[in-house]
C-alpha cells in the first residue's frame, strides 16, 4: 500500500504525528504482515493493518487438486498446529461423504489435536511473553513445545507439516513407544505450566503490561466474529468441542475456561487453563485407547496397503482407480467447523461430483480477530500494540491462506 492511500488524520497534515511502519518483516509480527501506525508521541492515533504477504492462493489451488492432495496444503494454514487443520479438513470431506471414521482413528485424532492445541498455546503464550520482555518464561515453556514436536515426528514423520490424516482415517497408526512417550511428557508439561504461571500470573510487571489492554465486551467480540480463546476471554462460553461435539468430544470430561474482560491478561489465563484441560483430555484418551483399524473399511475411499497392491488384482484396481479418478463424491455443499487453537476453523466445500472440489473455502479463525486490531489499539501505546498482536495469536499462514 502506498502511503497516499492511507487516509491520514488532520494531525499528520499539521506535521505533529509520526508514521511508524511495523513489518512486513518484524520479530513481533510472527509472520509477514504489516501495520502502519500513526503516532502522536507514543500513542497510536490510527493503525492500518495490511496483509496478504503470505497469500499463496490455497483456495484456488484446491480447485485443481484432488480431495486427498489438499491435505498437505492445510498443514500450511496454521503451521503451529497443523494436525488440527488436517483433522478439520478431513472431517469436512468425511461430512460430505457421509462417513464416520473408526473409533481408534477418532481417539487418535483427538489425542493429536489436543497435543497440537497445547503446542499452539505454548507458542502463543510464550511468544506473547517474550514480546513483552519476559524471556525466561518463554524459554521454560518452549522446551515442552520441542517435546510435542518430537512426538509428532514419531507419529507422522514430520515435526511441523504433519499431513497426518487421510480421508476416512489416518496416514498410519501411531508407532510402538508413542503412548509411553506421551505419558512421560504429560507430568513434565504440567510442571512447566506451573513454572510458567509462577513466573507470570502473579507478576506485577506482567499485570501492568497486560491488564486493561485490548479490552473487549462480549457483545463486541461476537459482532467482530471472534471465536476461540479470544471470545471465551471476553466471557462467551462458546467452544465447539462442547457446543457442537465432533470426534466423540462429548464423551470426554473437560471444562471450558471463560474470562471476563477480554483483555490480554484474560486471554493469557484462558489459554493457560486450556492447556491444563488439554492435558486432561489427553490422559482420558490414553486411558481408553483401544486397538483397532485406523481407516474405514471401504476400498472406494481408503487406499489398499502396499503388500495387497502388489499381490492382489482387486487391490491393484482399487489403487489405480483411487489415484487416477479419485473418490466418488456426492454432489452437494457442506460447511464443517472444528475448534482449532485460534477458534472456529471452517471448511466450506462444494462438490460437483468430480475428482476435485468445485470450490473450497477456508474460514480462518484469526482473520475476523485481526480485523478488529485497529480498534483494539487505538489510543494505546505502541508497546501495547505488540501485546495485543501477540494475544490475538495472528498466524500469517492462516490469515492470508
Amino acid at each position, binding site marked *: *500500500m*502506498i502511503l497516499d*492511500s492511507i487516509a491520514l488524520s488532520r494531525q499528520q497534515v499539521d506535521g505533529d504525528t509520526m508514521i511508524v511502519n511495523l513489518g512486513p518483516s518484524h520479530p513481533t509480527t510472527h509472520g509477514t504482515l504489516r501495520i502502519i501506525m500513526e503516532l502522536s508521541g507514543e500513542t497510536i492515533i490510527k493503525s492500518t493493518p495490511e*496483509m*496478504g504477504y503470505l*497469500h499463496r*492462493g490455497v*483456495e*484456488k*489451488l484446491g480447485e*485443481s487438486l484432488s480431495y486427498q492432495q489438499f491435505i498437505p496444503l492445510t498443514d500450511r494454514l496454521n503451521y503451529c498446529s497443523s494436525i488440527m487443520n488436517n483433522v478439520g479438513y478431513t472431517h469436512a470431506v468425511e*461430512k*460430505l461423504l*457421509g462417513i464416520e471414521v473408526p473409533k481408534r482413528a477418532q481417539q487418535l485424532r483427538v489425542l493429536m489435536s489436543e497435543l497440537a492445541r497445547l503446542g499452539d498455546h505454548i507458542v502463543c503464550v510464550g511468544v506473547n511473553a517474550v514480546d513483552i520482555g519476559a524471556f525466561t518464561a518463554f524459554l521454560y515453556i518452549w522446551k515442552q513445545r520441542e517435546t510435542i514436536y518430537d512426538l509428532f515426528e514419531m507419529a507422522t514423520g514430520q515435526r511441523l507439516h504433519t499431513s497426518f490424516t487421510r480421508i476416512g482415517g489416518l496416514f498410519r497408526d501411531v508407532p510402538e513407544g508413542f503412548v509411553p512417550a506421551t505419558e512421560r511428557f504429560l507430568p513434565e508439561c504440567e510442571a512447566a505450566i506451573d513454572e510458567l504461571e509462577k513466573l507470570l500470573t502473579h507478576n506485577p510487571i506482567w499485570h501492568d503490561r497486560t491488564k486493561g489492554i485490548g479490552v473487549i465486551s462480549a457483545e*463486541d467480540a*461476537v*459482532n*467482530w*466474529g471472534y*471465536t476461540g480463546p479470544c471470545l471465551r476471554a471476553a466471557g*462467551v462460553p*462458546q467452544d465447539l468441542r462442547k*457446543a*457442537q461435539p465432533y470426534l466423540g468430544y462429548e464423551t470426554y470430561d473437560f471444562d471450558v475456561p471463560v474470562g471476563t474482560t477480554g483483555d490480554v491478561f484474560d486471554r493469557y489465563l484462558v489459554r493457560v487453563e486450556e492447556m491444563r484441560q488439554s492435558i486432561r483430555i489427553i490422559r482420558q484418551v490414553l486411558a481408553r485407547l483401544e486397538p483397532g483399524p485406523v481407516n474405514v473399511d471401504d476400498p472406494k475411499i481408503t487406499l489398499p496397503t502396499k503388500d495387497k497392491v502388489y499381490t492382489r488384482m482387486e487391490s491393484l484396481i482399487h489403487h489405480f482407480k483411487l489415484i487416477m479418478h479419485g473418490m466418488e463424491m456426492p454432489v*452437494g*455443499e*457442506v*460447511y464443517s*467447523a472444528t475448534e482449532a487453537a485460534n477458534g*472456529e476453523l*471452517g471448511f*466450506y466445500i*462444494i462438490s460437483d461430483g468430480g475428482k476435485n472440489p*468445485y*470450490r473450497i*473455502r477456508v*474460514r480462518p479463525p484469526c*482473520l*475476523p480477530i485481526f*480485523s*478488529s486490531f485497529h480498534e483494539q489499539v487505538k489510543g494505546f501505546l505502541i508497546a501495547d500494540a505488540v501485546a495485543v498482536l501477540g494475544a490475538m495469536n495472528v498466524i500469517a499462514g492462516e490469515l*492470508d*491462506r
Partner: protein
Amino acid sequence: MIIEHIDAELPGTVTDRHAFRGDQTIVVAKASFLALVDFLYREGFQLLVDITAVDWPEREPRFDVVYHWLNLASQERLRVKVAVADGEAMPSLTSRFKTADWFEREVFDMFGIPFEGHPNLTRLLTWQDFPGHALRKDFPLDGGDAFCMEGCTAPYNNGERG
C-alpha cells in the same frame, strides 16, 4: 427451526432451500436480503461466521454470495445464498456486523463483487493494482499476467499491465 420462522414472518423471502448432511441452506433474492438479515439478527443469529462467493461462469446470474450464520444460544447454523450478476453490487453488512468489513473486502478482491455502502472497499489479500480477480474460474491457475513483467497478453487484462 429458523426456516419455518422465516416462512411465517417473511413469507415469500425464501426462493429455494435445501438441506444436505444436516446443513440448512436458503436462497433469497437480493431485494429481500437486508430485511432477512434484520430478522435473523433479532432471532439471535448474531455471529456472522463467514462471507464468501462462488463463481458459476455458465450460469446467469454468475455469482453466489454465501453467508454463514451461527446462533450462539441455540447453536443453529444457517447458510444464506444470494445470486448476483457480474458487476452487480451486494448491499454491505458492515453497519450491522463489523466482521463483514474484511470478509467483504476479500470477496471483492477475489471475485470482483462490489459491496454497496462499504466504507473502505479495497483489495485485502492482493495488491491494489492486481489485474483480475483470482478466484474467478477464468483466472489462470498460474497467476497469468500478474506475475509476468512484460509483454503480457491475456483477455482479462486487455494486454496491459495493471
